[in-house]
């Protein structure tokens, strides 16, 4: 061996060479790190919270309470192309209608007389087709079955539809057409917190857990944005389902809050010490809408079946008015879900079924503060701010009120009156503010000095009002923002608190006058809301704080910040 002349580097040389090459590769990798392992764009991005109100152009007219859409749905809905691609037996006529475990489906279960296609069902007897209700609890599976044409209908909340729609609409045949709202979640979804968290604002810097891309995500992030808390200032932990979120919250003491479903949200505070319910959809009772959508090709080929489905579900709601029928429906539902009737009965308060009149308000009334359009736009806004939605779909590309309009003309369900409106008794601010609000939203309306008119026009140099101008051009958008929040929290009570600046403090101005001005401003905001959106005046309590509470205690002379109105949402029991 030793005699052999050595060629090439020595062992040490090889080592050095190897290290050198390694260092080169590492250096190159570091240099191109943004290309090799880019950091994405989401993460700690700051949301411009003022954008929350800029989702629509200002609209200063529309002071009436009901304004129905004038267009025909077919004009805005994307046309269906190609050959229909769903499974359909023209003899049997069975609609495959998947549902999840949710009490909101009770009307359709009642109408169908159980889950399986049934010749004695309302659908078969009155409308000439059968319905096959299938339990598909996993929304992804339900979506895939819908896309594949295995089922004709997709269950979901409106916020889920916002996320599903862009992908489903890549094929015009599987585009979702939403025809009916089945219910509002009303106590079924909620937020449970640990420790000293008393309102949404306290979640800043805390850790929350919830199911991603689900109503839970919409619920909590909508709240955060409304309370002026940057979603990026909260640590989000994601799970695949709401059940896991509840389990994670119970298991992991470092998590401060979870968003989940009934019964977990009510069981946790009973079983786990130091936890309480922050808010549920019992208060935010017009936030999460359960709907169903049909495949566009199916809806196009079988408008009479769609109409029958919509009508049959309303018939089911009529049927449930009868106590014995209701018991029967619980029994059928229990069989279909593989549960006990008692367990189904216990879910009865999770949702509020929306009858014909409430559907009309949701789909057709352009002025309803919690209608389809506003809910859809609000969801779109929240998900866009979170960076989860690239190319949103317009509400009128999925909303189809044609079946509702037909039923309206026929007057079939004229007897179903709006049952969702909460009634309020006047209450005092003092009593109310003893409780802590669920959330407080600060809005800024630029009032003309000494004026309490929210629609104050601009003034020329001589102090004369200029017609068709607004001192605060974004006032309508600001009110829209408030109206959405107040509309979502339909059952909650709301405090409107006005504040004035302290520019005249110590200059001979009486505090009573300033206090009156701030009260007048709060009252003006209330009146504007009541007038345009038809809210119950007793839902609001008005208070003026004068110059007593500067917006920022560390910067009390920031007068622009001080001239403000705060909207606080209180749980209904605060009165």
């Amino acid at each position, binding site marked *: 061996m030793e005699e052999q002349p050595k060629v090439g580097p020595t062992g040490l040389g090889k080592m050095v060479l190897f290290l050198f090459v390694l260092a080169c590769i590492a250096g190159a990798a570091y240099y191109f790190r943004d290309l090799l392992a880019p950091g*994405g764009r989401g993460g700690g991005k700051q949301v411009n919270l003022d954008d929350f109100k800029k989702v629509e152009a200002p609209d200063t007219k529309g002071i009436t309470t009901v304004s129905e859409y004038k267009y025909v749905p077919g004009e805005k809905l994307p046309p269906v192309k190609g050959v229909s691609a769903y499974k359909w037996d023209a003899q049997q006529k069975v609609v495959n209608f998947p549902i999840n475990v949710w009490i909101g489906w009770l009307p359709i279960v009642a109408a169908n007389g159980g889950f399986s296609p049934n010749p004695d069902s309302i659908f078969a007897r009155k409308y000439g087709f059968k319905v096959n209700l299938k339990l598909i609890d996993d929304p992804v599976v339900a979506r895939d079955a819908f*896309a594949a044409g295995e089922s004709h209908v997709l269950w979901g909340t409106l916020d889920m539809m916002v996320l599903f729609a862009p992908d489903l609409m890549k094929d015009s045949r599987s585009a979702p057409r939403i025809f009916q709202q089945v219910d509002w979640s009303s106590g079924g979804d909620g937020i449970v917190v640990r420790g000293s968290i008393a309102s949404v604002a306290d979640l800043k810097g805390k850790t929350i857990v919830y199911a991603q891309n689900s109503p839970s995500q919409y619920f909590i992030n909508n709240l955060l944005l409304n309370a002026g808390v940057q979603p990026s200032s909260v640590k*989000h932990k994601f*799970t695949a389902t709401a059940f896991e979120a509840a*389990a*994670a919250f119970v*298991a992991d003491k470092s998590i401060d809050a979870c968003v989940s479903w009934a019964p977990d949200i009510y069981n946790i505070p009973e079983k786990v010490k130091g936890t309480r319910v922050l808010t549920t959809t019992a208060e935010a009772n017009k936030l999460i809408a359960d709907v169903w959508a049909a495949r566009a090709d199916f809806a196009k080929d079988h408008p009479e079946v769609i109409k029958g489905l919509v009508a049959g579900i309303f018939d089911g709601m009529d049927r449930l008015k009868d106590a014995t029928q209701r018991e029967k429906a619980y029994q059928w539902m229990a069989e279909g879900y593989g549960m006990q009737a008692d367990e189904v009965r216990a879910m009865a308060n999770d949702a509020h079924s929306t009858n014909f009149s409430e559907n009309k308000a949701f789909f057709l009334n352009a002025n309803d503060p919690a209608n389809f359009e506003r809910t859809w736009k609000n969801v779109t806004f929240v998900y866009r701010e979170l960076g989860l939605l690239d190319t949103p779909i317009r509400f009128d590309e999925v909303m189809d009120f044609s079946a509702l309009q037909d039923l309206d003309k026929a007057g079939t369900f004229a007897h179903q009156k709006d049952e969702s409106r909460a009634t309020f008794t006047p209450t005092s601010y003092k009593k109310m503010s003893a409780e802590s609000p669920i959330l407080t939203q600060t809005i800024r309306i630029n009032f003309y000095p000494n004026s309490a008119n929210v629609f104050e026009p601009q003034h020329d140099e001589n102090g004369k009002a200029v017609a068709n101008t607004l001192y605060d051009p974004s006032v309508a958008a600001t009110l829209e923002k408030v109206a959405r929040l107040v509309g979502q929290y339909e059952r909650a009570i709301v405090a409107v608190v006005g504040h004035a600046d302290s520019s005249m403090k110590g200059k001979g101005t009486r505090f009573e006058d300033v206090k009156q001005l701030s009260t007048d401003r709060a009252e003006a905001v209330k009146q504007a809301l009541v007038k345009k959106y038809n809210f119950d005046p007793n839902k609001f309590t008005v208070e003026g704080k004068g110059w007593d509470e500067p917006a920022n205690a560390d910067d009390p002379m920031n007068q622009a910040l001080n001239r403000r109105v705060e909207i606080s949402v209180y749980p209904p029991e605060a009165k």
Partner: protein
Amino acid sequence: MTAASPAGGPPPARREPPAVSARAGLLRIREELPAWQFWLLGIIPVAVLLLAWMAVTHGVAEERVISPTILPSPAEVLASFPQLWFERELTRNIGVSFVRVLEGFALALAVSFPLGVLMGAFSKVKAAFAPLTMFSAYLPIPTLVPLTLSLFGTGEMQKVVFLALAFTIYLVPLFVAAVDAVDDTYLKTAYTLGATKGQAVSHVLLPISWPDIWQAMRMGFGVGWSYILLAEMVDMGRGLGGIILSSQRRGPREHIYLVLVFIVLVAFLTDRLWAVVGRWLFPYREAKR
């Protein structure tokens, strides 16, 4: 191996070299393939699959055999690559998932290696643990997610432990089999030479079963990738499983298939690495054939 009959071998009729039919024709048993054939034959099915994919996803959305809402076309999948790479941080997420698999594997090894070897060597240990390993092999592992959740929280720990659990269930029987396979002759020889129990394990059973143990580890490492989705179900957001889960809800569907391709790619590369290191560690194993 030892089945040769003592009466002088099998009957002559069987001994005749098999007729030409066995060695000729398109398919020959244990034929030596030139490299080009090896690669070509491997590529054909992949190419066919790709062509079939293109065929069923060809044309306008409404005219395809399979709708793009179920299966996007290869071109669409490719087109969504930059978004996955740049906006959804593909490489970082691969890194996150890979580290999880690695940690889970290391944890599993720490448990299953001693257990497997002991079970392979000592019948009493084997008898004690055999029912447990039998039972766990049939366990639907997804049901363990909530359990690991309540025991290990929602953080990194839970994911690693969950993966370790899946690995362990897979690895233990393979390790036992590897040690089991060591021929008794070696043990007898060792005893004859005066080996103690410990020496028999460390100088006979282990060294001889090393290559099989290595092979078991190589096969087992892939298992982690099949459970990554379940492991990352809780506190998702980082990792490849998280990308798939959220793409199922909010799209784009393309990313699901793209991530699958990358998982296969990563699994393939790590498998090659296992093979190369194995060849370097146990050159004699290759020489067997």
